[in-house]
């Protein structure tokens, strides 16, 4: 509390250059008074965990209550405790300032009549460091504002704002890309641009983007890369023999001088990524699919996490937002890399109820530390588009297997993990993953078959310990059962009852499941009726 508040006071004194002493400064800065109450409240929230501080809380909570009430009644500044505000916060003037359910980085400024809060669904904005937010601004909903961005007065933010951008208007439009807001934030030089921001001692990251029939999405994808708050990266874009090469090259023309562009015959995503890895010079490889996008802080957060361990992490991954695309996608590279059920029904439900996406971790939660076994058990799952790998680790693990068309990333993560690597997981949502409506049941089956292939291959090729082998065997059996189940469902719906029965029997020997037994019984005696019931149940689930 004290360090954060001292930073606030320092910031306020920097801005209010002509103040006459700290006491006078405090009396004149209404925002500082509100911040005092806020910082006290946040401290008390944290102190509640320590029982020996409870007597203190008994005295301090009423003080907090009175202070925050005063700030609200006198100046109408509401900094609620649900907001997470970084140190060095400055509130300009007073009146109708509402900050709740959001995260704000260090050294930000806001003006009067500003609302920063969550939308009705409870997901709030995330605002980076050193952001200047003008008066009369509204940032409501799960928008991300990159570090060093500037939001002009009167703006109504209705989408993500990249780092260092200047946005104005209602709805807020991007006016300038590289706007230096250091002067208006009135930050001291050292605070405004920390030494490492230039990236001299930070690792180079090679961003590898395989593309196939991606003309419609590539602009958004590349834009999300060039908006990163982390600047030390190179982009390698591999055109995997796409039939729409002409339009594609037209779409990427504005970026051609900033990227490495490779064209090759169509050999699948694995081969395309491998070609990119051969060309890469960076210490880390970050993979991004051509129809997905990153949030502005993606690389910065992942690099920070990777460097936070000693030795540096070999594999870092994070949560992504999976959302339903309204447009039909013609080709898709796998969006999930395991045998978990396809996320589509869940995403569809989320889209229906909340009008947005769903976190990847809601479908495939990452529990516990990321190790080889937890990856194998799928306690932890890395999405392709938000995973960063050390180049040396990928090369010594043997790159992507070009024979695999599905789950090839799962295969590589497992091989990297097996070499006693250290891995880390960022719980933040750092990217967006498109899912297309359509018949994913068919897709799901192929994905499961891919997983079975991977596990079969690994069980012979890797040198496993006894416990790892047993985990792998269990996983393989479960995946095979899932495949049989999916096959059974598919052939049942197609009306091939004999095949369906055989598949379900095979699945039933591995999965003890009452529903499955009932389905088998039904199939034996009343196949058509069962087909109707199962069909109705499956569509209902979707």
């Amino acid at each position, binding site marked *: 509390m004290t360090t954060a508040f001292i930073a606030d006071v320092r910031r306020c004194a920097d801005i209010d250059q002509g103040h006459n002493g700290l006491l006078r400064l405090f009396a004149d800065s209404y925002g500082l008074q509100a911040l005092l109450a806020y910082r006290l409240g946040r401290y008390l929230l944290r102190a509640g965990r320590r029982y020996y501080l409870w007597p203190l809380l008994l005295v301090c909570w009423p003080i907090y209550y009175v202070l925050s009430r005063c700030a609200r009644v006198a100046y109408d500044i509401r900094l609620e405790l649900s907001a997470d505000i970084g140190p060095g916060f400055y509130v300009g*003037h007073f009146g109708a300032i509402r900050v709740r359910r959001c995260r704000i980085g260090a050294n930000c400024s806001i003006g009067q009549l500003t609302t920063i809060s969550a939308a009705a669904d409870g997901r709030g904005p995330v605002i980076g460091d050193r952001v200047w937010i003008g*008066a*009369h601004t509204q940032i409501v909903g799960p928008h991300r504002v990159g570090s060093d961005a*500037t939001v002009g*007065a009167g703006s109504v933010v209705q989408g993500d704002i990249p780092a260092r951008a200047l946005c*104005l208007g209602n709805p807020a439009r991007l006016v300038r890309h590289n706007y230096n807001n250091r002067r*208006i934030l009135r930050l001291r030089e050292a605070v405004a641009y920390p030494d490492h921001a230039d990236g001299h001692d930070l690792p180079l990251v090679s961003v590898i983007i395989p593309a196939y029939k991606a003309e419609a999405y590539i602009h958004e994808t590349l834009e999300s890369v060039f908006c990163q708050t982390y600047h030390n990266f190179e982009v390698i874009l591999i055109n995997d023999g796409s039939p729409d090469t002409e339009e594609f090259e037209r779409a990427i023309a504005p970026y051609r001088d900033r990227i490495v562009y490779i064209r090759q015959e169509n050999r699948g995503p694995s081969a395309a990524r491998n070609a990119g890895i051969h060309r890469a010079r960076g210490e880390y490889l970050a993979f991004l699919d051509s129809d997905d996008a990153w949030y502005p802080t993606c690389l910065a957060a992942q690099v920070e996490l990777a460097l936070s361990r000693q030795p540096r992490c070999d594999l870092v991954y994070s949560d992504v937002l999976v959302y339903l695309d309204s447009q039909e996608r013609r080709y898709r590279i796998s969006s999930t890399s395991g045998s978990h059920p396809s996320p589509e029904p869940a995403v569809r439900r989320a889209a229906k109820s909340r009008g947005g996406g769903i976190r990847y971790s809601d479908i495939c939660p990452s529990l516990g530390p990321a190790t080889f076994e937890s990856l194998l058990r799928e306690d932890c799952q890395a999405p392709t588009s938000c995973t960063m790998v050390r180049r040396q680790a990928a090369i010594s693990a043997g790159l992507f297997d070009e024979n695999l068309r599905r789950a090839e990333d799962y295969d590589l993560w497992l091989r990297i993990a097996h070499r006693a690597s250290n891995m880390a997981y960022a719980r933040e949502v750092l990217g967006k993953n498109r899912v297309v409506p359509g018949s994913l049941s068919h897709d799901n089956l192929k994905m499961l078959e891919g997983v079975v292939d991977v596990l079969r291959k690994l069980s012979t090729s890797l040198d496993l310990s006894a416990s790892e082998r047993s985990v792998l065997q269990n996983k393989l059996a479960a995946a095979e059962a899932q495949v049989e189940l999916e096959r059974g469902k598919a052939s049942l719906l197609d009306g091939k009852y004999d095949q369906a029965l055989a598949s379900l029997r095979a699945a039933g020997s591995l999965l003890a499941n009452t529903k499955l037994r009932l389905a088998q019984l039904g199939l034996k005696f009343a196949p058509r009726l069962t087909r109707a019931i199962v069909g109705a149940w499956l569509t209902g689930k979707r």
Partner: protein
Amino acid sequence: MSPHHAEVDALNSAPITFAQALEQFVRQFAADARFYHGLTRAGPGSPAWTALRNRGLWLLTSHRVAHFCVRRRNLRSPVWWIARLCKSFGAGFNVLCCRSQLADDCEIDGVAYLSNHGYLLCSALSIGSGSLIHDRCTFGHSVAGGGAGLPAIGKDVWIGPDCVIAGPLTVGDGATVLPGTVLTFSVPPRAVVKGNPARIVRTDFDNSQLRRSLSIVLDVATDN
């Protein structure tokens, strides 16, 4: 320095007695109260009652005192010291009771309506007589735009709620700024501006109807 300021500076040297100052103040206050009374037309029919219930008038009155202090600084005059004392209380009073801030050196010649609901943060150079300024407005520097300078508001201007007027610009006499405008350029007389970013939607519009009451008629200038 504008000619207006030079004129005021010439006045600075002229001594002012307590009776003169009080008379000036009361006359001004009566004029303001009559203006507010004409606009609001509510409550019992005396201007005194209007003076009590209009917070915009409190703001205007305390601004008169503060303005006197800034413009007629004279350490030897007891009148100035009394005004200075009132000004110190007035700043806090404005924030706590009127929920507004008005820069001390803003020239308001004649009477202007300032919102009763507050949230007005005004550091304009001048506000012309007969102007109407609704609540939740901000006049000041254009910070992100980079230009240092303050706006000057002309006579008979109507400014709707939620407006931001920022930068070194002039709002011409008789102009109309529709609600929610973010204005960063000068507006010619009798023009209508709206939107964020602002644009001029009409060039010759008579806003005397609008300025007759406090009701906001939104469809006045939406065509063209």
